[in-house]
Structure formats: C-alpha cells, structure tokens
C-alpha cells in the first residue's frame, strides 16, 4: 500500500491506489446508522393487505402509538412533475383512511427497546375492510379497474408520447418488421444494510440531528423541513457510513419524516432500523415493466424505424424527489439505445397499482430497455440469417456528436469498437464451431451480446427536460488547504461504497502536488458540506469530480501565486510536486506547509495583492456524457432442468478517463452481479391479492459467490470534453448490459427448440415452461 505513495510527484489520476476508506471498514470501525443508541426505538405497524379502508386502530394501554390522526400538521409527500400529463398523488406519512400496498406504514410504536417496540406492534389491533387489489399494470389499465387514487381514475399517473414526423413513412417502407414483447419482473435493490434513521433533539439549540442511511442528505433535509414545517437550518442530516444504496436510498422514506417529527415532539432521541422483511416489502421496488417493441428494417438489416410501448408498474405512490415517472420517461427517452435510428415512436405510461412504490435502482429503466432492444436485434439477426454482432455493427452509432431521435446528444464513444473487441476476445467464430459440436452431443451452449449507451453525469438541463419540480444536477465542492498543509475537501455528493474519498483525493493530489493521504474528503453531513444532490445516476465522479478539479485548480493557482512571491520567481516557473513548491530548473523550493502557513499567517508580505486563506469553491453543472460498453456472455443451458450456467462473461467498456482502475473494475463487477441477478434470479413475487411471497432472503435470491462467473474486463478510454475531467460515469453500466447479454445467450442456446425467452428473470421454471410449450406446439 505504502509503495504506491512513495512515488511522490507522479500522476495520481489513473493509478490503482488503495482506498482511503478501507482501514476503518475492515476493522469494524465504520459507523453505520444502527450503531447509534437512542432513548426510544420505533417499530412500524404495516398493512397486511394491499388495498382497503382502515376501520379501527386499537392501541394497547400505556403505549406510545402514533397514527395518522396525530400527524395533523405534517404534510403528505406530493412529488411533482410538470410535464407528460403527470397527476400528483399524495402519500401520507402514515396511512390515512386507506391502505394501498402491503407494507404501507399504518402506525409507529415507540418503546425503550427495539424488542419492546416489536412486542407492542403485535398487540396493536388494526381492522381493515379489504377491497380488490390491482397487482399487475395491465390489469390496472383495464376498463372498470378500480382507481388506486381517486384523482387518477385511469391509474395512468404519467404518460409520455413521441413520434418523429417521418415515422409512418419509414415504418411503411420497411423490408421486414420484427416485434418483441418483453417483460421485466420486479426487483428490489437490496442494499445489505437496510434503511434506518436516528433522530436526536438537542435541548440547547433546539435542533434535530437525523442520522440516516441515505444517498442524498441535503435533499432529505429540505424535504423533511418542508413536510414538517420547520426551519431547514434547525435540521442537520448526517449520512454516516452507508451500507449500499443502489438508488433505493435516494428516495425519501416517510419513516424518516416520522422520526424527526417524533424527536421534536418527545424532545429526545428516537431510532428505527428497518428489518429485512420491511425492506423487501416496503423499501421501494423497481423494473416492473412490459415493453413492446417493433423494429422496421430495410433489406440490408438496417433499423429504419423503431416503435415502443412501455407500461411501467409504478406501485401505489410516487417517490420523492424523482417521481415515479423516472422509469417510463427514461425508457421513452433512451429506448433506441446505441442504435442510429431517427424514425421513432413511443408511448410510455406509468401505471398505479396496489404494490410497493417503484423508485430508481441502478440503471433505472435501462436494464429493461436494453434487454428489450437487444432481444429485438437478436430476433432480427435470426430473421436476416446473419450474426447478431454483424447486425449490430450495421446499426450502431458511429459519428459524433450524434443527435438521437429524442434529442439526446451523444458525445464521442466507442460503440462499434467495443463490440468488435468483444467479438474477437470472446472468440465468436471458434464458439460457433464448439456450439455445433456440443449440440450434436445434446448440450446447448449459447452466446449473447448486450451493447448499450449509458447516459451519465448529467446536470440540470437533462433533469429540467423531464419537467421535474426539483431539478438536480450541479455539484459544489470546497477545497481548502489548512495552515498545516493538509487538505480538507467538502462535497455535496454522498458516496456509499464508490470510493469517492480516494478518487477525488487523486484528482486533487495532481493539482496540488501532495499525496492523497494528505487529503480528507468530507461528505454526508449537511452542517459540514455545501448543498448538493448526493450520489446517484453515475454522476458523482463526473460532476463532483469536475467541481473538485475546478476548485483544486483555484487553490493551485493561489499556491503558485504565493510561492512565486515567497520564492521570488515568476509564477510560470513554480512547480507543485512531492509536497513542495519548487522553482523549475533550480534546487530552490519550500515545503507546501510553509506556503500554506504564509497564506494564513504571513499575508502582510503580499501587500494586499493576495486574499488571506486557501479555501476555494467551485460548482460544476455539465450537460452529460455517454459511457458505453459491450457485454458478452456464453451460457450452458440444461434443457432438462432449465438451469443456466454462465461459462464466460466479458465486459468491454469505455468510460473515458479512468481515475482509479481498481475502483472502476470493482464498480463494473458489482453492476454485472446486479445484472446477472436481474437476468436469472431476483424477483419480487406478489400473489393475486397483493401479498408478497418473497419477503425473506430465502425467497428473494441475490446471487452468492457461487452463482457469479469470472468477469473478464477490457477498457477503452475515449476522451470526451463533455466532462471536465474527461471521466464518464460507470456506476450503473454493469447492471445495464448484463441482462441483455445473458438472455440473448440463453435464447441462442435454445435456438434449435424454436423458443423465445423474453421475460426476466429467466428462471428454470420459465425456461422449462417455454421448452414444454414449444414441444407441445406442432411445428
């Protein structure tokens, strides 16, 4: 570890240095929300039924029980969007009058210990007059379906439509039209640390400190202050160590609002730690979509028109701050993916049902839309009788900047190159021979590709285009060298496993000529960091990293000015390296701490030409940039059992400049694991009454080390000026390409059976059912 840091003066960006985060985390010194003790513990009583009217709540005597009737002054969540026929719906902090999904909090029980609180939840009696539940989005669209919210009689809470002027003409001119009906089942992001909060009242200041497992502490503060009606400055929100988020922790849980309200009312500390069952049934879901695509191809297998119909089940409420429109609208905007098709028509609807609300999860809609369009490409290739990779090469975007049919501007990337390398590296030609031989022996191997563009690091213009009431995007970073020559950097982003303390330190180290060990990155505390949006959407390294670079450049400029005066040399001749300011070509120099000290304590020497201090701030709000990758999988399908074994998995990716290759690889591995889970294992299952059948980790199945193949990685680095560091985001990509590659590989393996698996996860049951159906159907 120390060997890396002795090479002072080297460039830090691009090196696989060890993470500064790790020593605390491997020794058990990390501090997670549930590590804090409280005077009172909270448990929630949750609805056991999906739909119904609350008739009566009877609390045991002497217990502190909070229900909706206690929360008169607290506003319901009402996330807003100003476009796409979005109809706002209200979500009370505790169910008010009726319940709309299994797991919806009805009451909060407060006791001196978690166990006592849990005992009390059992003694609370809730009578609910149950009514018919809508579980499936298509059922919710049917005529006569009950309305989940009275204000949305059709259950369509948001509807986006687009049709380019030339669509009909291009579509009509097609040589072949190919359709795919794809179904992406529901997933839960399942961070290993479930959610939880600890709210403490400080009698001296009257302030509340909410420590909680969140990806966006500043927004949590704004939202809770708004809902409760308290001055925002009286609330401090801390995101301590956070045990994974993957998007689930970027939506505001109503439970956190209740905790702050309760701490204020009881003037003490209260804590809630979500258990796994709560997390699985009520901790936000994602990916529940039907996608119908039709591709119109010319005689050369060029995609000339594309249409899509997206039905996204958004659950019972709309999440804050993105709103539930995030899935259907992203599907509509990005469905064409990396393919050059200018004639496009799409309708995307978000449909309310009596299920757990949907919120962003790594990749958001893109795992589903990539799966759908990549199935379309493979089906088309089969129709045209060419290799799927060849059909892709004919259709991938090549010239940059490229303006998509939906107006997205793709910066320079390597769509064709990554595919070409993947085809070569996985050995497509040799595989086809092996596949034929295996088939002859009754063994079914398949190969599949997933190519995609990953829109990352987008600022306010991209969010504004969605019509969000709250328009995230920029990040502010404060870089401050203190008089000791150490650097403290305060960021509004809120990392939770991404290693941002290390990568930002690498960016700063190159600017200031000091080792990363001298740089502290402070995040996750609204009292200590500039307002910011948090960590999500593969944005932090691009946006917070960009702001870090801009702020560090300012500190660098100032250090150089001061050093030039102290060393009586011209600014152009000052070098910052190895913890010193040096005069180029001489042996003259000063330790950086001497320069820093002068900035604070010797300002009289600069005759008023230099402002005291070394603290600089910068804000970065980029338009966005597109990473890209090609995933390739070889699978072995057991047609007797429907089991799928992944024999090979390859990712050829391009995220621009890589700041720390070790961390980048780790992000891709983790994303691919989510994608494989999406393709093969994980599914939240509701029965027809809206009860969840997968409420434990014995039923909902995140992959273990045994289900994960070795992931081979290849990197390209297309440097784009769309990002000031030339780094593109890559946090989500692993999860975007993998499902498509695996499902395509399964279908390739099963080609002799004339089946098409267009639903994920492709469980053994589904694969067997498809094979059985194909065998029963006379050819």
């Amino acid at each position: 570890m120390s060997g890396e840091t002795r090479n002072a003066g080297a460039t830090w960006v691009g090196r696989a240095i060890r993470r500064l985060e790790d020593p605390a985390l491997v020794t058990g010194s990390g501090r997670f929300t549930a590590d804090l003790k409280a005077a009172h513990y909270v448990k929630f009583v949750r609805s056991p039924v999906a739909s119904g009217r609350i008739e009566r709540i009877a609390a045991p005597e002497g217990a502190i029980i909070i229900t909706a009737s206690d929360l008169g002054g607290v506003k319901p969540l009402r996330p807003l969007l100003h476009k796409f026929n979005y109809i706002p719906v209200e979500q009370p902090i505790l169910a008010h009058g009726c319940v709309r999904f299994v797991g919806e909090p009805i009451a909060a029980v407060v006791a001196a210990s978690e166990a006592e609180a849990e005992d009390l939840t059992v003694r609370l009696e809730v009578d609910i007059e149950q009514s018919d539940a809508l579980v499936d989005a298509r059922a919710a669209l049917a005529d006569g379906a009950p309305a989940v919210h009275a204000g949305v009689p059709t259950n369509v809470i948001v509807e986006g439509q687009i049709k380019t002027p030339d669509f009909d003409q291009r579509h009509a001119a097609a040589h072949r039209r190919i359709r795919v009906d794809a179904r992406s089942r529901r997933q839960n992001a399942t961070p290993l640390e479930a959610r939880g909060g600890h709210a403490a009242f400080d009698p001296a200041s009257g302030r509340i400190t909410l420590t909680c497992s969140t990806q966006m502490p500043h927004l949590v503060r704004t939202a809770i202050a708004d809902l409760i009606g308290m001055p925002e400055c009286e609330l401090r929100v801390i995101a301590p160590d956070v045990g994974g988020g993957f998007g689930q922790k970027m939506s505001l849980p109503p439970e956190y609002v209740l905790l702050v309200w309760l701490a204020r009312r009881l003037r003490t500390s209260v804590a809630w730690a979500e258990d796994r069952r709560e997390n699985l049934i009520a901790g936000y879901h994602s990916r529940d979509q039907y996608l119908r695509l039709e591709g119109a191809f010319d005689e050369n297998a060029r995609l000339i028109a594309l249409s899509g119909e997206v039905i996204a089940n958004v659950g019972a409420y709309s999440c804050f701050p993105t709103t539930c429109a995030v899935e259907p609208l992203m599907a509509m905007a990005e469905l064409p993916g990396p393919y050059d098709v200018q004639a496009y028509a799409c309708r995307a609807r978000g449909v309310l049902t009596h299920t757990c609300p949907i919120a962003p999860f790594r990749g958001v809609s893109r795992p589903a839309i990539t799966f759908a369009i990549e199935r379309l490409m493979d089906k088309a290739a089969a129709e045209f009788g060419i290799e799927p990779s060849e059909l892709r090469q004919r259709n991938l975007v090549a010239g940059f900047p490229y303006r998509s049919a939906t107006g997205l501007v793709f910066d320079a990337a390597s769509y064709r190159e990554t595919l070409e390398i993947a085809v070569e590296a996985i050995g497509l030609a040799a595989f086809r021979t092996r596949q034929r031989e295996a088939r002859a022996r009754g063994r079914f191997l398949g190969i599949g590709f997933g190519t995609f563009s990953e829109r990352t690091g987008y600022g306010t213009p991209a969010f504004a285009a969605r019509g969000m009431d709250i328009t995230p995007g920029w990040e502010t970073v404060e870089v401050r060298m203190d008089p000791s020559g150490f650097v403290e950097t305060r960021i509004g982003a809120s990392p939770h496993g991404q290693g941002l303390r290390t990568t930002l330190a690498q960016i700063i180290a190159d600017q200031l000529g000091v080792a990363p060990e001298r740089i502290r990155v402070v995040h996750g505390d609204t009292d200590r960091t500039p307002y910011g949006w948090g960590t999500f959407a593969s944005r932090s390294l691009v946006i917070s990293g960009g702001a870090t670079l801009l702020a560090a450049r300012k500190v660098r400029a100032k250090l150089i000015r001061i050093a030039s005066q102290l060393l009586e040399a011209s600014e152009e001749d000052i070098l910052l390296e190895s913890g010193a300011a040096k005069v180029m070509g001489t042996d003259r120099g000063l330790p950086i701490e001497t320069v820093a000290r002068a900035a604070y304590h010797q300002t009289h020497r600069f005759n008023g030409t230099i402002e005291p201090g070394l603290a600089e701030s910068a804000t970065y709000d980029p338009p966005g940039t597109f990473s890209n990758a090609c995933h390739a999988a070889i699978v072995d399908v057991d047609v007797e059992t429907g089991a799928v074994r992944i024999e090979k998995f390859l990712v050829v990716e391009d995220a621009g400049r890589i700041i720390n290759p070790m961390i980048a690889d780790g992000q891709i591995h983790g994303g691919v694991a989510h994608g494989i889970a999406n393709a093969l294992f994980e599914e939240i299952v509701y029965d027809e009454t809206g009860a969840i059948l997968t409420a434990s980790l014995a039923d909902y199945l995140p992959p273990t080390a045994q289900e994960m193949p070795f992931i081979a990685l290849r990197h390209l680095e297309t440097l784009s000026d769309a990002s000031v560091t030339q780094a593109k985001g890559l946090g989500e990509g692993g999860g975007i390409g993998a499902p498509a590659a695996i499902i395509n590989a399964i279908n390739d393996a099963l080609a002799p059976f004339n089946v098409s698996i267009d639903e994920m996860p492709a469980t053994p049951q589904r694969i067997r059912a498809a094979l059985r159906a194909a065998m029963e159907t006379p050819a």
Partner: protein
Amino acid sequence: MTDKVDLTLNVNGRDYAIRVEPRRTLADAIRDDCGQTGTHLGCEHGVCGACTVIVDGEPVRSCLMFAVQAVGKPIRTVEGLAAGEELHPLQRAFIEHHGLQCGFCTPGFLMLVIGVLEREPDIGDEDLMDVLASNLCRCTGYQNIVKAVRAYAAETRSC
C-alpha cells in the same frame, strides 16, 4: 417481556458482564450490550452472514444464536482481528484486492474465512469457494473477495 438474566460474555478476550432477556440474540448482545458494533445485521434470519462471528473456534451466525448460548465460550469479532495498528493479513488482503466497497458485509466475510481457515488450513479451493457462498455481498460481485481470500489462503498454506 421476560425477566432479564445476568451473564458474562467473553468478547475478544475481554469479559462483559451484561443483563439481558434470555431471548436476546448474540448479535444484539455483542452490538448493544458489549458495544462492539463492527458486527453487522443484514437480514436477522441467517441468510446473509453479515453478523458472522467466531464462537469457540467456529464461525456462526450471531443472529441465530442466543447470547445465553455463548456463555463460557470465547467470542471473536472483527474488532479483535488487528493487533494494534497491525492489520490481520486477511484485512490487508481485502484492502489490497479491493474486496470491499460499502464495507457492510466485510466483517462477516472476514470472520467466516478466518474461522474456516483456522479450522481447516488445508481446505481445497472448491470447498473454500463453497464456504464463501455462505455470505452475501451486494457491492463487489464477489470477484475481488474471492481474489483476496485466495491470496490469503495461499499465504496461510505456505506458512
């Protein structure tokens, strides 16, 4: 609520005299009564393994064991691995090979692997991989955990 019982747990060589309900899990007792919060709770139903500690030389899920069952048995948790500033070789291997991201599952993986390798230093690679499938990690996709564990196992075997 049941009457509380007095008991002593020995965690990382130190005795903790605590007073808990008989139903209190070992995990809760270690975290809340002994104050050793490095042991994490991921599911509380014995699947994820985040709460793995070593009791009497065996890696166990501390969420599935009662505190009263651990009386008189030495308990080791992640806090006891490093000797002062000197990290345990497996802790070093996790850092070196980037075997952690958010770090929530890490203590459980460390205790699992150390417990098994102390018990079976010559365990074969296939069995070791089988053991690793006992715990869940949601960040790393396991590849670098496997790398770290293999590196440490090789080091242990060569000693």
